[in-house]
């Protein structure tokens, strides 16, 4: 099975989905399920016969240029399996959502086109191919996002993604000018450590930041994810955002870091073992964590909240990858897995709610748990992982990242990392409390019902995997060790069930079983005692007042108001910056228009004279 075949399958089935979708909307979406499942399984098969550096050269169709080559590496396969899996899982949602959108057939087509783009990006050794598919994903996403709520989001998505991909392109051309070929590994190896390497590193980092939505290129992410169609949000957060992580791996791991060792900090040296480039990226990653967390705490829209949490988790990935080393790399890569699964599951759960209620605003929802218990459990598991709590996958990666940070003695970065970690409890709890728990609001009481089986299936599979990654992480870490070995590092020391870090041993399976024992004991205590009397949700302590309105008893708006008040004035700096930048461009345009585009020909003559005068003056 060659890569180009799979890409052609994805493209062809995309076109097929379009035409089927024209006939029957739902059937077109079903095509996406079949195709993405097929591609995921085929990618999975690739695992069997991968040896590092297997190249699949392009020879099937002749009119393409020679440089179109594909290569399956551990790194590429790692990302490809993950993202195609997310695509396959999310595709189950398509038939249920596609009818709501304006162009259902287009939706199905672009969904598969994005999938093709993903394969192309991850499984190539050629920069031009990488860039081609990178942009390909951009424009597929560009038309997917506005199918949701509004199209402003698509514009900022386009602006930042394109800025990112153009930075990537610039870096590619720098390498091309150096080597004369578009080979990815050759190019990176050649510039690594040279002056050009510095620029390439900066540009690739820029691209990664733009794709991950990291500070200061964060504006698009919450907008796009908040407004995109629900399945697309899950795909973006779980899958497409990871393109940025991929580029970050290329930039931070495959290129030698630049700058001096030990960035100095007011006479005290903080980053003892880090190079300046690593420290800068880590600092920006830390800023991303803090901004993402603080913004997520403020959101009222559950999807936007999760979008900001994606941003914050992107910061973790950046911090981990920039620190490098065994712990940093494996922590970063594992965090990619953990976050992809968790955020996809969380977004799907929110999507399932929004399907029956038509809104994702937390202030308009409440008590969904009584009608959608399974969805609630899926969300719960997802957020436990997102907050990095055992026994879910997120804990393993955060444990590794913490150790990497502590091992490097990065105090200020550690503040951000810990802050994000605790802050994530705050924001992930909010949808839980406001959307699923609390009073059951009358406007959704009759409409709401549990999602159908085919929507629950992917959610449950994802939840199962989240738990599995937390209980038996060694299976995944083994593969990550292969990836790290391919990148030229040393992998983690893994026992049968244990993970050995720098300063401690972790036994996730043990934690999970002790967890189980504890819950069992608690359950026995609970069951032995007298049975409780069931009372209604409105029969609560109200200081004796008779209250009949559910909304009054539901605390969901401005959940963290006292905390928000402390920082709300300072939080929008990036947004304001881009707003101002845009205004500056507009002002400049208007100014030029005002000075040069009048209905008076003499103005032009005036400018011509000025210009000639300039020339003569220069000469004299």
């Amino acid at each position, binding site marked *: 099975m060659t890569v180009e075949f799979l890409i052609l399958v994805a493209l062809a089935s995309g076109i097929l989905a379009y035409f089927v979708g024209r006939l029957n909307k739902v059937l077109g979406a079903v095509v996406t399920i079949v195709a993405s499942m097929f591609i995921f399984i085929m990618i999975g098969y690739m695992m069997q016969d991968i040896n590092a550096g297997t190249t699949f050269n392009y020879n099937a169709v002749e009119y393409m240029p020679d440089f179109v080559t594909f290569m399956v590496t551990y790194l590429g396969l790692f990302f490809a399996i993950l993202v195609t899996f997310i695509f396959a899982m999310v595709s189950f949602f398509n038939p249920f959502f596609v009818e709501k959108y304006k162009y259902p057939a287009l939706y199905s087509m672009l969904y598969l086109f994005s999938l093709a783009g993903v394969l192309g990006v991850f499984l190539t050794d050629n920069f031009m191919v990488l860039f081609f598919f990178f942009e390909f994903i951009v424009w597929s996403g560009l038309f997917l996002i506005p199918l949701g709520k509004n199209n402003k989001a698509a514009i900022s998505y386009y602006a930042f993604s394109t800025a990112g991909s153009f930075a990537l392109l610039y870096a590619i051309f720098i390498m091309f000018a150096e080597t004369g070929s578009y080979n990815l590994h050759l190019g990176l190896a050649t510039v690594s450590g040279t002056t050009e390497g510095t620029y390439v590193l900066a540009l690739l980092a820029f691209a990664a930041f733009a794709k991950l939505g990291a500070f200061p290129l964060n504006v698009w992410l919450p907008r796009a994810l908040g407004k995109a169609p629900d399945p697309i949000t899950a795909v973006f957060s779980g899958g497409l955002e990871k393109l940025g992580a991929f580029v970050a791996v290329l930039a931070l791991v495959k290129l030698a870091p630049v700058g001096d060792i030990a960035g100095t900090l007011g006479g005290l040296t903080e980053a003892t073992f880090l190079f300046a480039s690593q420290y800068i990226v880590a600092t920006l990653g830390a800023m991303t964590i803090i901004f993402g967390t603080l913004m997520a705490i403020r959101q009222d829209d559950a999807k936007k909240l999760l979008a900001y949490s994606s941003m914050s988790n992107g910061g973790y990935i950046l911090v981990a990858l920039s620190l490098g080393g065994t712990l940093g790399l494996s922590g970063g890569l594992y965090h990619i897995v953990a976050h992809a699964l968790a955020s996809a599951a969380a977004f799907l759960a929110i999507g399932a709610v929004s399907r029956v209620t038509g809104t994702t605003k937390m202030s308009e929802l409440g008590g969904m748990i009584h009608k959608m218990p399974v969805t609630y459990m899926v969300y719960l598991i997802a957020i436990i992982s997102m907050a990095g709590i055992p026994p879910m996958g997120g804990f393993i990666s955060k444990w590794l990242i913490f150790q990497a940070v502590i091992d490097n003695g990065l105090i200020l970065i550690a503040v951000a990392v810990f802050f994000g970690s605790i802050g994530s409890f705050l924001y992930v709890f909010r949808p839980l409390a406001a959307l699923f728990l609390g009073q059951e609001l009358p406007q959704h009481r009759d409409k709401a019902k549990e999602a159908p089986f085919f929507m629950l299936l992917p959610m449950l599979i994802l939840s199962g995997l989240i738990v599995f990654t937390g209980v038996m992480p060694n299976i995944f870490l083994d593969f990550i060790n292969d990836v790290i070995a391919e990148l030229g590092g040393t992998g983690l020391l893994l026992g049968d069930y244990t993970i050995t870090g720098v300063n401690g041993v972790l036994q996730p399976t043990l934690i999970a079983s002790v967890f189980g024992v504890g819950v069992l004991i608690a359950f026995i205590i609970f069951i032995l005692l007298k049975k409780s009397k069931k009372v209604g949700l409105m*029969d609560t*302590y*109200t200081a*004796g*007042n*008779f*209250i*009949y*309105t559910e909304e*009054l008893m539901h605390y969901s708006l401005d959940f963290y108001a006292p905390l928000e008040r402390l920082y709300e004035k300072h939080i929008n700096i990036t947004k304001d910056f881009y707003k101002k930048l845009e205004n500056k461009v507009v002002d400049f345009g208007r100014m030029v228009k005002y000075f040069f585009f009048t209905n008076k020909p003499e103005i032009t003559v005036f400018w011509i004279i000025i210009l000639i005068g300039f020339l003569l003056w220069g000469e004299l």
Partner: protein
Amino acid sequence: MLSTKFSPMSKEEVDRKWWEIGDFFRRNSLWMLMYCTGCCAIELPPAMTSAYDMERLGMGPMATPRQADVLLVTGYLSLKTLRRLIYTYEQMSEPKYIVGFGSCTINGGIYHDSHAVINQLNKYVPVDVFVAGCMPNTEAVMNGFVDLMDLIKNKKANGWKDYHERYDWYLANQKAALGEVRVHDEFHE
């Protein structure tokens, strides 16, 4: 007469034993919900602070009816507060007790002829202990609590059971005085 033979206890007996054990805990850890409607509430601070130190009996104030064991009704009850009192009492988890303070809860006290104040609390909710006086002094209050503990020990503090058994009677009284117990209150809608 000592029985030498081991005889398995019946279920009722087991329940009774457990109940007695439970009564021991309950009387040694009475948590109060203070419904400070009237002037008698002023007697509670001295009872709680260093002068009389209620905590040595294991008593303490609680914030919500769900957590509390004993409801203190400290003084007169207007119609409006009685509604809230009944609602609060019904929210308490069982076993639960009521202590009525002052003559107002017994016979209306100085408000006996008011159009807005009820005269006799135990018509509407079961009161286990009354503390007489207008207002009762602190020793009387403490004595009332000790009496309540004795009642619990002797299984006589059965007001909450009475409320279950004669609920119709209580409800009829409540309705006669109040009309409807649960009213719509425009400030909470």
